[in-house]
Each structure stands twice: as C-alpha cells, then as structure tokens.
C-alpha cells in the first residue's frame, strides 16, 4: 500500500505531532520505504505455523504467560514520582484538563 503525504498528515494529527510541510515531504517517502521493508515479511509462508497462544495449553495447563493473583511490593509514591517533570502533593501534575473527572473522554 503506497503511503501518501495525507496519510502522514493524519498519523501526525492522531499522534498530536506538529509537522511542517517541509517535514511532510521528507517523511512521506521515508515512512513509505520503512513500510515496504517490513512488508517483505508477507512473503513468508506461515500457513503451516501454529499461532503462539497464552492462557491454557491444549492440554489445559496454564502457560508461563499468566501469573497468580498475588500483590507484591510496588514502587511507592516517592519513587514513582521521582522522574516526573512536575510532581506535586503526591500526584503527577499536568496542565488542567476537563472540568470534572466524569467529563473525560474515555474510561
């Protein structure tokens, strides 16, 4: 699938990135060539490869991709906030978003 400048513009918007027209002209062919490179994978015949699944094995054994429900130590507040750009009062602080927590866009 050819990648066009309008694809790049849409991706940039979705990713909240501001790019100039000049960058757009540079990025479009670059992204196109990356996609073409990765698309080589499609040439592999995987029709006889079983998909890797987690959860239970066909014999009903739990795989290593799952864990027991046991709480273990967390980082704690001080360490969790140590690298944050603007921590305050035990929280991550950001510029004000919507008026109330119910008004968030997603759950």
């Amino acid at each position, binding site marked *: 699938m050819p990648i066009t400048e309008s694809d790049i513009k849409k991706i940039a918007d979705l990713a909240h990135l501001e790019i100039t027209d000049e960058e757009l002209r540079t990025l479009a062919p670059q992204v196109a060539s990356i996609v073409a490179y990765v698309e080589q994978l499609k040439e592999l015949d995987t029709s006889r490869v079983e998909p890797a*699944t*987690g959860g*239970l*094995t066909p014999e009903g054994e739990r795989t290593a991709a799952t864990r027991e*429900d046991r709480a273990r130590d*967390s980082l704690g507040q001080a360490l969790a906030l140590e690298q944050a750009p603007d921590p305050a009062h035990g929280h991550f*602080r950001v510029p004000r978003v919507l008026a109330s927590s119910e008004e*968030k866009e997603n759950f």
Partner: protein
Amino acid sequence: MKKGWEAVIGLEIHAQLSTESKIFCGCSTRFGDEPNSNTCPVCLGLPGSLPVLNWRAVELGARAALALGLRVNEVSIFARKNYFYPDLPKGYQISQYDRPFSSDGHLEIVTAERDEGGHAREWRPFEVRITRLHLEEDAGKNVHEGLPRTDLYSYIDLNRAGTPLAEIVTEPDFRTSWEAYDYVNHVRRALQWVGASEADMEKGNLRCEANVSVRRVGEEKFGTKVELKNLNSVRFMQRAIEFEIERQIELIESGGRVAQETRLWDEREACTRVMRSKEEAHDYRYFPEPDLQPLAVNADWIEQVRRAMPELPDARRKRFMGQYRLSFDDASLFTRDHALADFYERAAAASNPRGAANWLKGELLRELDAAGLAADASPVSPEELGALVRAIDEGRISGKQGKDVLVEMFRTGKGASQVIEEQGLAQVSDAAEIEKIVTDVLAANPQQLASYRAGKEALFGFFVGQVMKASKGKANPKVVNELLKEKLKAE
C-alpha cells in the same frame, strides 16, 4: 412515554473484577491508599516493561460471562485502544476488540413498569441480548478539586491504572428506562452472587453508560443516538434516560434534530447537559497487543468454572417456587441476595417452608431493612426464626404474641424459647389445668349455665371469654373450646 413514540436504549457496564492485584502487574488494587503508591513500571507505562496476565482476572471474567448467559470464546485477543489522556500513561488502553473474551449472551431478567410512587406494576420476564463481555484495564484517576490551583492544574493518581475490568455491552434491546434499570440491578446482583465483582456503584467499581434514541412507533430505522454519562447510581441512570427520551421527543416534534453527542446527567438540576459533540469520530487505531499472546482457554476449563459457581439467582428462584411452593414474588424477594436465600432455606429446614416464608417476609425482613442489616448479620438466626414458627404452629404462643416475641428476639439476640419463657407468654395447653379453670368458671356462673342448658347457646362466647380472662389470656383457645363444649353438655 408520549403516545406514538418508542425509545431504543443500549447499555454499557464496566465492572471491576475482585482481584487482589492488577490485571497486568502485581500492584495491589486496594482502594484508598496514598496516591501513586501502588504503581510499578508496568502500570506507569515505563519503556521496556511488559504486561503479564493475571489468571484470576480471567477466571472471574469467565464467572461473570457465564452468570450473564454469554458464551466464553476459546481464543480471544487483547488489543491496544489508542488515545491521549493524562490518566492513561501508555497512550493506549489494553482492551479487546474484534475477538472478545465472551459474546452472544442471552439473559432473561424480570422487569416491571413503575407507578407514580415507584411501585412495580406487574413483573414480567424480559430477554436481553448481550453483545459481548471483554476484559480490559482501567485508567488512572484525574483529580480536579481539593488540591492547590486546580484552576490551572489537574493531578493524576495512577493507583487505579491497570485494575481489571469487565466491559459488558448489550444490544439496543431496551424500550423503557425501567427495563434498563432492572437489567443493571440484575447484572449487579449476578456479579456479586458469583463473586466476580463487588459491583458497588457508590464505590465506583460498577459504572454504566446508556445510548438513547427515539423513533415513531412502526419506524424501523433507529434515530440518532445520544450517549449518557455521569450516571452514578442505577436510579440516576433511570432518571437520566427518562429525561432524555422526553427531551428528544419534544425536540423532534418541535421541528428540531437530535445531535449525536455525549450528555452528562446533572442530578441537582435533574437534566442532561451536552458534554461535547461527537462530530469528529474517534480513531482509536485498534491493533492486536503485541506484548500479550492470544488468550486460549478450553471447554473443560469453562466447565470447571461453571461447576465451581454457586447456583445462580434465577435457577434458585425457580427451585424455590418448585421445592417450597413459593409464589413468584416471594421467591424473587428471597433470592435477591445470596445471604437472604441461604437464610430462608435454613429457616425453612428448621420449621416449614410456608411459615418460614411468612415470618421472614412479613416480620424479620422489615426489622432487617429498618436496621440496614443484611440477612447474614441478622441478630435472629434462621434456626431461631424456625423455632419461633414452630412455637406458633404447635400452639405454644399465638401469632399475635409471635410478633412481639420476634421484636424482642431481634432487639436482644435471645432465642425464641427464652423470650417466650421470660415473658411468661407460653400458652396453657395442658388440658388438666384448663379443665380446672373451666370447672371454676361454670361454678361461678350458675345462672348463665342454666340458661345455656335451656337452649341459649349464644352464651358459649361468654364462657370462652370468662375462661380466657381467668387464664390471663394464656389458655390455648382450641383446648378451651373443646373442653367447654364437653362440660356444658354434661349434666
């Protein structure tokens, strides 16, 4: 609803699954800890960290799915839902998309329209199609008040980020706000019953959203739907839907058009307000989560989960109607929660099904509800309620006295026999003792006796009254009647 109109309602419920640790990391799900203390590289979204699935969340998700009549899929796939919000540190939420954990649910509930006073008119069965129940992680919490300069800043607490949720989505099958109300309550009880979720809306571990549209009766096309949020209790949800139906009908009838938008319920003003328009549809760019393998389970395991679950409320209600010959209303009442259903069965075993039902429904439940107690916290045990019912059945005390005895048992926590004895309430059923009283009464009233024997049989009641008075009301009326008949006849 206005004549000639019909509402179309679909519901989404998010229920927190009752695990000890988060769905993809080992941080505690405990509520109320210091902000951001229960966090780690996984739920903070730090680079290089990888999610590992909590198996308990899968088990509880399966319980929830089975309790709601869904089919658990043998393979499901986690997907990334991409969007930006400060409470979502990774920039995506791990959810499920085109291959959900369970789907195709058919759930039978009971529902009723309510009159002005909120009383159910007539209960009827109602089938709800549940599209899917999938597993996902919760986001963190944005704090907008109670901290300095909230006019400029929002604060983020990520303790909740990564808590396991089941998202339960219905088809647009509801036509009235009460159907939606009865459905959400049914789901809450079912999830609590099987231990999948505490499902408490006040604590925020059950949240719901409603999609509402209206159309003229006979119209097949759906109208434009409005999404309702900020529904903090089942009653608020019902009121919000009701308001929204009326608003949309009025809008269309006055020549307007319903806009596709999200509206919030404002309980204080009792209305919905627009939150934001939905003109630019979201592009969540869902794609399979590369850090988690497809989730495989099998038929044996699903069967094991099913067998480990307690008998479901509906099945138990039907059993109560058959085994104990209870009415639909009584059986529904007693199966409203697990503890109450257990209580009833034990009380019935200690006495008889009919008597236990009458005394539980008529008397004890009123005391429990007034005290805000659940059945398993009742000061009167099921066995003691059974003992009280037996005392009445055997004629040791009258039904009227039974009510006072129960109140005393509830107040003091004492057993039925003890209260009956302490209050000197036990009826005198001993024939010899009553016979003596009868003889005395006849001897004290020779004139009435002569009249009676001369044919004035209406005086029978007079003698009963005299005997009861002499026994201070304790004589068993049945024994009194029998003995009096015998003695009055004898010459």
